[in-house]
């Protein structure tokens, strides 16, 4: 085993002179740090498949680290509709199809790397073995939730570069909720301009001029342990004049959104659906200031989403 690691390290050293030393197998934190570093420092291109309940698709990815350290990345769906996005340092520059006009004015948040220290409180991090993905050797890491409020995550990282080659989201019962898996990865061939140029169908993103609202009208009366508020967006709908709130929560790995809008004479019922890993749940909430609809969308177990939805509260001082 040791000899093998040595050989791999040597190979890695030969192929990519700038590569950092490989973490030891059991060093999960080391591998996660390695992955974060690889995404910032390693150019690559490849194809991957994504599978969830009722959906299977294949995609191409071109990821180039430019001279100044800027990361330019293009993703294109290879079957069915040609969904495309071009990002620079994680900020989308253009998006194809319907999403463009639906993008909200919210400024994209800074990239947050997976940090073992943050995760360790709510997930057991384990190295569980080796695998082979896209013709490459991979180390398999497992992030097992410590409570029922999040899903488990299985991650296969490329031994040579630390890039994620495969990731599985697993429910409490061990059911597979989604799979992302590379079928081919090339870290050596330099990427040309052509590969990173978006097609004409990729529409530039224009921030909509929605009037921001200063106050925070809602807060979560209950959150699963480890989740914290990442961002709040409030905007006044230009047509109806009502204030729509959007809160985003994360635990370092899993994320969910809460949307709240006032109901105007409508009486929709509570509803719930599941899109692969994503639960979508909405329920009416009566408050002193009127009836609201609370919608939770995220990659968390349905029971947790239900509980979050029930515990949303209007802030004391403000009246919508």
């Amino acid at each position, binding site marked *: 085993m040791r000899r093998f690691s040595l050989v791999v390290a040597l190979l890695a050293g030969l192929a990519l002179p700038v590569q950092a030393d490989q973490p030891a197998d059991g060093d999960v934190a080391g591998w996660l740090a390695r*992955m974060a570093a690889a995404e910032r420092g390693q150019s690559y291109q490849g194809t*991957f498949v*994504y599978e969830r*309940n*009722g*959906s*299977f*698709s294949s*995609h191409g990815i071109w990821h180039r680290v430019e001279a100044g350290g800027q990361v330019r990345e293009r*993703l294109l769906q290879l079957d*069915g*509709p040609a*969904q495309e*996005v071009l990002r620079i340092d*994680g900020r*989308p520059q253009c*998006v194809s*199809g*319907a*999403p463009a006009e639906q993008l909200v004015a919210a400024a*994209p*948040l800074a*990239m947050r790397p*997976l940090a073992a220290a943050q995760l360790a409180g709510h997930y057991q991090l384990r190295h569980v073995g080796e695998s082979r993905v896209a013709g490459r050797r991979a180390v398999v890491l497992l992030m097992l939730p410590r409570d029922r409020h999040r899903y488990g995550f299985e991650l296969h990282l490329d031994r040579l570069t630390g890039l*994620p080659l495969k*990731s599985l989201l697993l*429910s409490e019962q*061990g*059911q*597979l909720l*989604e799979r*992302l898996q590379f079928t081919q990865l090339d870290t050596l061939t330099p990427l040309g301009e052509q590969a990173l140029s978006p097609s004409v169908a990729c529409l530039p993103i224009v921030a909509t001029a929605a009037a921001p609202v200063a106050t925070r009208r809602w807060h979560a*009366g*209950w959150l699963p342990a480890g989740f914290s508020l990442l961002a709040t967006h409030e905007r006044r709908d230009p047509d109806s004049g009502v204030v729509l709130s*959007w809160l985003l929560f*994360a635990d370092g790995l899993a*994320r*969910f*959104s809460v*949307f709240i809008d006032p*109901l105007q004479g*409508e*009486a*929709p*019922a*509570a*509803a*719930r*659906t599941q*899109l*692969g890993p*994503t639960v*979508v749940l*909405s329920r009416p909430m009566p408050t002193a200031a009127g009836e609201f609809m609370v*919608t939770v*969308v995220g990659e968390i177990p*349905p029971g947790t989403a*239900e*509980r979050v939805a*029930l515990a949303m509260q209007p802030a004391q001082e403000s009246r919508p």
Partner: protein
Amino acid sequence: MSREALQESLSALLDNETDELELRRVLAASGEGEVRATWARYQVARAVMHKELLEPRLDLAAAVSAALADEPALVSRKPGLPWRGLGRLAVAASVTVAVLAGVRVYNQDDLATSQLAQRDAQPLLQARPLQGPAVLAGYPATGVVAAPGQGSAAVQQHWQQQHLPAYVRQHAQQAAFIGTQSALPYARAASLEGR
């Protein structure tokens, strides 16, 4: 009422092993979010134990309260022996009705799905026919289960169809912007489009 006692009562209630006084205590306490949440968890746990795919509905508390309100005589009545038994039966029946009304069994589609979702199952390549004005790709119209309540089904569905697809998209896209694993949230968002 202490939390432990309350949770015991909740558990008993869901196992149909409670008397109406206890039921009322639980209902009185169920105004608190945490108790309602506990209730939901127990329901899910029960569903799992019975291998049922149920949808927990916290509106149950309200439904049960309403059912009880329609039976004012029960608690105030002196426990004349024959009546007491009948009363309990009546409450239990009402609760059962409320439970049945509030909890919908997921449709066949979802059951099949959960079986398919086993690890390393067959490829999930089922073509899903478009259903009317497709709300969302991969968004089975039957998957949105509306709770029984006031208002026509059309009105209730209308709100969901108007708002939920945009919310799902918004969530997926924002998540993509903050991802470290850039491909994953992108793929999630893409899987919602144009299928």
